[in-house]
């Protein structure tokens, strides 16, 4: 079977990420294009189309051998197949950081730690509970409340002088904590750092309970948050000092696309494994679906 060009679409609750990947017959992968579209109360189908079209346009291809979805993308009408989020993030992480043997996927609604082998096969996972305090959406809400742009959150947090702890369990209580902090005159930087440290503590415990060691790749939208990364480094160091297995955190500028990239690569794998020749799918056909 010849080289394949496949697409992955990661439908998240706040953004849809799409990637187009070329997979050579002998197994090498190249990212050809990517797209990202924010949901912002729009119809998901519209957002999916926007991200997908952007990725296909950047890739400069007019046909795809497999369109794979992940996340909440099960009902995408022009998809060939769907992969569970953890499966896709594990493979995407390997593409972006081949040494990774665990992934910390931090998205808008939840976080999960995933362990995997060298092929990207998921070996185990731990997730945050239903509470949203460990999520990107919670952080975004707080930033909005503080009048801080999402892009400023990381730098502000790193520059904090006297961070104060917030409730690490319940988003509602954490929000109450933040309101109290604001009324007490704490700076936005200290508040954000407190939240980052609270989230980082939870994520570090997730990784430790999973038994993660070696290189841990951070995927998902919050991977781009430098403040969270710094807090997480600190939490993991503190954990190691208490006897937890040492881990090395790695991020990538393409971390938010990890799921989409992983889905695309698995799509090519399935095409080859199942002998699915003739699955070509063009953007023109997609628009008719």
């Amino acid at each position, binding site marked *: 079977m010849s080289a394949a060009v496949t697409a992955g679409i990661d439908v998240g609750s706040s953004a849809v990420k799409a990637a187009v990947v070329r997979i050579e017959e002998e197994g090498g992968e190249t990212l050809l294009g990517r797209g990202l579209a924010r949901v912002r109360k729009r119809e998901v189908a519209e957002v999916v189309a926007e991200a997908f079209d952007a990725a296909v346009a950047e890739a400069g291809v007019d046909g795809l051998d*497999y369109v794979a979805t992940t996340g909440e993308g*099960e009902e995408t009408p022009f998809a*060939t*197949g*769907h992969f*569970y989020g953890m*499966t896709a993030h594990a493979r995407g992480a390997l593409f972006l950081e081949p040494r990774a043997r665990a992934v910390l996927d931090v998205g808008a609604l939840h976080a999960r730690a995933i362990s995997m082998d060298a092929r990207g*096969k998921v070996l185990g996972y731990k997730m945050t509970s239903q509470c949203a305090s460990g999520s990107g959406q919670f952080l975004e809400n707080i930033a909005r409340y503080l009048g801080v742009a999402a892009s400023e959150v990381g730098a502000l947090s790193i520059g904090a002088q006297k961070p104060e702890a917030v409730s690490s369990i319940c988003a509602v209580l954490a929000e109450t904590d933040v309101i109290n902090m604001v009324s007490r005159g704490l700076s936005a930087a200290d508040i954000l750092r407190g939240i980052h440290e609270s989230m980082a503590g939870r994520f570090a415990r997730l990784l430790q309970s999973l038994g993660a060691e070696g290189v841990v790749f951070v995927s998902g939208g919050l991977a781009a948050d430098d403040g969270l990364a710094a807090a997480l480094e600190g939490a993991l160091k503190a954990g190691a000092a208490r006897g937890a297995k040492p881990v090395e955190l790695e991020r990538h500028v393409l971390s938010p696309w990890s799921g989409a990239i992983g889905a695309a690569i698995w799509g090519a794998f399935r095409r080859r494994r199942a002998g699915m020749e003739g699955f070509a799918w063009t953007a023109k056909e997609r628009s008719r679906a």
Partner: protein
Amino acid sequence: MTEPSPRAAVVDWAAQIAEDLDFAAARAHLAENPGRKAAGYLPVYAPREIVRAAGMLPVGVHGGGDRLEIIRGDAFYQSYICHLPRSVIELAQSGRLDFLSAVLFPATCDVIRNLSGTWQLVSPEVYVRYLDLPQGGASELAAEFWKEELGVLAADLGRIAGRAVTGDSLREAIAAYNAVRSLIRELYRVRRETPWRVPSEELYLLLRAGETVPLEAFVERARAYLAAVEADAGRVRDKARVVVVGAFCEPPPIGLIKTVERAGCSIVDDDFLLGNRMIDGDVPLDGDPLGALARAFVGRAVRNSTLYEADPEGKRRLIGERVAAARADGVIFASASFCDPALLDRPMLRAGAEAACIPCIAFQFAENTGQFQQFREQAGTFADAIKLWGGE
């Protein structure tokens, strides 16, 4: 406003009927046919041919699903009893089943048997019959016993309906249900061969509706559905092919069926509404129709957890046989919580599946389960494991 496609029209029709807890379609049919009566039946298998031959409308009573608040039903059952009888009692006590002149309770399990007694207490004016299905294999003695039971049922229903069951009326009913069975076999065949064209949710709704309306209405809609499916090649989806086992009595919520398929599985065989397919093949139309119906059940009932199987290895082999017939990749054991027949069989079935290296997962549901995230995770990771690592 655009007209729905022929396929969407059938699915909409089926959904409306299947989800209607007031059985408006059955009631409307009775109102349009003064003097006609209806007989309800509980899962899994009831000889609907006898009901039809008596001129009555057979109506499947499959519980209230996730759309019925249980107020009175819980008073009749301990917490370790499945959900179906609670919602059936609730349906009855709320007057939703007051159009039934008879109710048949097959020997599915102790709970269904005892429900027949409870029904006699709460609705003494309704004819109740416990169907003591023969167990123990295809013996002439079993066929004779079942024929006698069917004879009693035919006489009783004939009396209630005011129209005696005759050889001719029974032959007509058997022929009619042979046509239904044939159509359902065809629907299952098309789904098995091209599962992306027949979502299991649609198939389930169609069959469920078919147990509430006159047979002719079901046949008409099922044929229209098949024609629409045949006319649309659909878009091939890359999913794991699974057999769902264990949901033969208390039906899973529609959301659960959708969740399993959305998560990356194609259901290519199942035991939902199993009574429709309990008799494998056609019932012969020549000779004594009552005897033919009895022998068809005794000799050709599909093996399932409500029937005794003398050979202990038979249960262990069953899953392998079903998976091979469906060309499936794996099995999902999905049973109602506290379903004794399914859960008692599960260890044997699962051991057989694992011995044959068939991937499987198991979960439990109730007809009113409303949260599907855990099923989504299980089915999604199961599908990925099959698609990416199956055979390792």
